[in-house]
C-alpha cells in the first residue's frame, strides 16, 4: 500500500505557513503579536522539522538561562521567531512560533529595570571606595576589639 502520510504533513505545513502570514499581517497593520503552540498541534517530528527548515534561520539567536535553557532564533522572515523552552532537566516543555518585533520573554521588565537602575550607581569608583573604606573600618574595629 502506498503511504500518502507525507501529503498530510505537507498540507499541515502549508496551513501553518498561511497562519503565520496572517499573524504577520496583523503585526504590520495593528501591531498585534501572535503565537502558535507547536507542541499543542498534532504534528509529526518530520512535519515540525520541515516547517522549521522552510522558515529558515536568520542572524539573530538568543539563549536564555531561566528555569532551564530556552533557545530563540529569528527565522528567515523578520518578526517570526522560533522558540524552544526546556525545563531544568532539559526536557522540552514548550515550542512556539512567535510573531513579534521582539519575543516577550527577551524584553526587560520595567520593575526589573527600575531595580537595576537603583543598583547601578553602586558600581562607580566613588561607591566602591566608600564601601572599601567601610570594610577597612570594620576590619580595624574588629582588630581593636580583639
Amino acid at each position, binding site marked *: 500500500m502506498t503511504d500518502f502520510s507525507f501529503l498530510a504533513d505537507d498540507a499541515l505545513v502549508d496551513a501553518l505557513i498561511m497562519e503565520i502570514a496572517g499573524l504577520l499581517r496583523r503585526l504590520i497593520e495593528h501591531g498585534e*503579536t*501572535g*503565537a*502558535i*503552540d507547536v*507542541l*499543542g498541534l498534532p504534528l509529526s517530528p518530520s512535519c515540525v522539522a520541515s516547517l522549521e527548515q522552510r522558515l529558515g534561520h536568520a542572524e539573530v539567536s538568543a539563549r*536564555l538561562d*531561566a*528555569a*532551564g535553557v*530556552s533557545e530563540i532564533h529569528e527565522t528567515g522572515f523578520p518578526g517570526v521567531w522560533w522558540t524552544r*523552552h526546556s*525545563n*531544568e*532537566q532539559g*526536557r522540552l*516543555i*514548550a515550542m*512556539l512560533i*512567535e510573531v513579534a518585533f521582539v519575543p*516577550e*520573554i527577551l524584553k526587560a*521588565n520595567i*520593575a*526589573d529595570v527600575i531595580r537595576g537602575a537603583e543598583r547601578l550607581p553602586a558600581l562607580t569608583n566613588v561607591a566602591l571606595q566608600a564601601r572599601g573604606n567601610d570594610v577597612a573600618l570594620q576590619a580595624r574595629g574588629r582588630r581593636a576589639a580583639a
Partner: protein
Amino acid sequence: MTQDETLGAMLARRGFGRRGLLKFAIAMTSSLALPPSVAPVMAANLAKAKRRSVIWLSFQECTGCLETLLRSSSPTIDALIFDFISLDYQESLMAAAGAAAEQTLREAMAANKGEYLLAIDGSIPVKDGGVYSLTGGRSNLSMLEDVAAEAKAVLAIGTCAAYGGIPKAYPNPTGAVGVEDLVSNKPIVNIPGCPPVPEVLSGVLVHFISFGRLPELDDRKRPLAYFGTTIHDQCYRRPFYDQGKFAKSFDDEGARQGWCLFELGCKGPVTHNACASLKWNGGTSFPIEAGHGCIGCSEPDFWDAGGFYTSLAGGSATGWKNAGIAAAVGLAGGAAAALSTRIKTPLEDAPASPPEKTPPGKSPPGKSPPGKSPPGKSP
C-alpha cells in the same frame, strides 16, 4: 513564607526571576491547551497571587496518590506551586495528631470559609452508615459532608476519589463510591489515575490560582486539556496500529520492534489520560514505552473491565492463560505467580484467554465489551 507573600516574591526569593515565571506560564498554557497569548496574563496573575488554603482529606486509599504528588526530583516551579498552596490539613503529612489535628481542621475551615479548596484522595464507603473507614471516630461520609459544605471547590484526586476505584471493585464490600456520587452542590474536578499524573494537579492549581476559576472539564468532570484525548491518540506506537503491526506476545519480534500492544490487552484506545504526552518520572517514559499495555487506570471501574491482557476486541494474548489463573487464585500470591509464569511459560504452549474479572452481568461504562472493536480502526 508568610501568608501575605505573593507567588512572584516567593519564586524570586528562591532564584526564579520574571522570565522563569513567564516561561513556566508558557509551558502551562500549552499544557492546559490555552492560547499562547494568555501566557503573559497568567504570569502576571501568578506573580500577584496569594497563597490558597487547601484541606486534604484521605479516605479509603493506599497513599499512592499523595506519594506521587510529593515525589519531585528537583526544585522546579511546578514543584514550588505545591509549596505555594497552604496545605492546612493533611493527616499523613501534618505534625499534629488526635484532638490537635481535629482542632487544626476546624480552624482552617473557619479561617478560609467558602474559599478553601478541598482535595480528596480515596473512595468513600457508604455501606452500613460508612463504618468501614473512620477518622477520630467520624466516618469519611460525615467528614466529606461537613468539609465540602464550606469549600470553594472539590478536587477528587486519583481514581478512587473520582469513581470509587479499587475499593469499589466487585464485590465492593464497603459500598465504596466516588466524591461526585455524594457531593452535588460544589464544583468538582476529577483527576483520575492510579496514581494520577502530578502535572495535571499542578495545572489545575495554576489555572485556579491565576484565573480564580477551574479549567474547562469534560463530561466526567476531568480537565479537558489533559483528558480530552485517549492514550491511543497520543501514543508513539499509534503508527504501528494504523499499519496493522501488532506484538503477539511480550517477547516476540513485534514486541522487540516496538509494535502496537493492542492485542496484548492495551486499553489505550478507551483510556483518557495524559500519560503519553506528559509521561512519568520527570518525562522519562510511560507504561507503553516500557513495553506494557495501558491498563486503563484512569477510567471508571477499570479493575472490573476485563483482564489486563485481554484485548479490547475480545481476543487474548498468547502466553498468559496460566498467569491469568494464578491471578484469580489470590491477589498477592497471584501477582507473584503471574510474574513468574510470564517468565517461565513457553509462549506457544498457552493459547487461551485469561479469565474475565468483570462480574456477571456487569458492563463497565466506557469500555468495549469483548467481541466489539474499539473506536477507530479495527486491527
